[in-house]
């Protein structure tokens, strides 16, 4: 697993899972449609990514679909890192 995936995965686990939560979260786990992250608390993930990678993700691109798995999140970050 590359560094960015690991970084995002670690953040998701730390930020959204309770200590007693034994659900396994991987890069393909559905975060939003799977009920782990709700749209209300998604904002902290967006802010983390922007700060960490020095990018700005427009609200129009910060959709529940784009934030639904670690893989799609990494794709989104890479898109804005390049542009």
């Amino acid at each position: 697993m590359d560094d960015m995936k690991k970084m995002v995965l670690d953040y998701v686990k730390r930020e959204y899972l309770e200590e007693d939560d034994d659900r396994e979260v991987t890069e393909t786990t559905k975060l939003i449609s799977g009920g782990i992250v709700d749209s209300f608390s998604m904002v902290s993930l967006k802010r983390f990514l922007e700060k960490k990678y020095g990018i700005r993700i427009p609200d129009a691109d910060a959709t529940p679909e784009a934030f639904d798995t670690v893989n799609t999140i990494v794709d989104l970050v890479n898109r804005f890192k390049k542009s």
Partner: protein
Amino acid sequence: MAYGDSARSIYQTEIKGIRDAGIFKQERYIHAPQGAEIVVEFPPGSPVKKVINMCANNYLGLSSHPEVIKAAHEGLDCRGYGMSSVRFICGTQDIHRQLENKLTEFLGTEDTLLFPSCMDANAGVFEAILSDKDVMIADRLVHASIVDGMRLCKAMQDTFKHSDMGHLEEKLQEHQDKRFRMIITDGVFSMDGDIVKLDQIVALAEKYDAMVCVDDSHASGFIGKTGRGSHEHCGVVGKIDIITTTLGKALGGASGGCMSGRRELVELCRQKARPYLFSNTVAPVIVYGAIKVLDLISQTTERRDKLEWNTKYWRKLLTEAGFDLKEGDSPIVPVMLYNAKLAQDVARDLYDEGIYAVGFFFPVVPKGAARIRTQLSAAHEKAHLDAAGAAFVKVSKKYKILGKGKKEIIEMYGM
């Protein structure tokens, strides 16, 4: 025609999707005043049926109290039916200010502003007092109206894990560069029934220079020794900057709400909060009724004491029978069933047994955390609870879930 076949078809498909997902909400028609026993027509067109109500927010049993009804009649006679105005044009009567003063005294704050509902108070308060220089940090399980209110505000949004003080502290540290930090929470969380750790939140707010806003809709009137709310329960009366609450639950149950707190914040909401500025004043009948409610509960704690007794008795009854309950001290007692279909089936069978209780499941609660939320009332007598308890046992035996915990129920029925 703008609303043509295409629009109709799209909306019909969406409604079908809601039905297919099993989350279609259907109203039950009640042919009686609110109370411990009600007469219900469900499904529509069915013969009416008398049932014990275990799902109302009528915590103090004042929704149909004779003295409250009498006061409402007086209000109708003395101040009329409606005001046909927002507050600041010609919708403020002497009694509106009188009620605000009584709420201020009851809640132990500096001033109060009435709103048409607590939903409106929550929708208006953040936008009126915070700007893009500020941050709102909310518990992740706050009520939907707070989520909506935060979305209407330009301040940065953040959240902390439910009731996790360590996580809240991290967030407060992270946002020290903001002009204001506002911690936002419910007093009693409506789905789990747990009470906020408000003493710890106030300590963190003092340490990190933050304001505190509490929605005490499921607490005002009965939580705390004299029913003032979660701030009384946690020993921090006078230290909460904003309390939003409702008149639509324990405090008479009609409608209306308020924000109460620091004088300047209340004044700013009076000047700027849009749901206050642009919707009608609370009707005189409700104002009279609410004043009577506050008089009644300020004279004696008899009703909140009875509610406390009922809550303890109900918890004991269900625990001894082998139900899996969410821990807590509030009159919201969730019976955990974990599986959405099981929660719906049990609720349906309870209704057949003469008990009205509702199943809650995703997206209202997290996936795999479906439950039946029971709510106690001071209107309940011991006989009501005994009958409801017997019905819960009978129905649960059918599904073989008595004495079973989370793991076993999920093994039997799935998440």
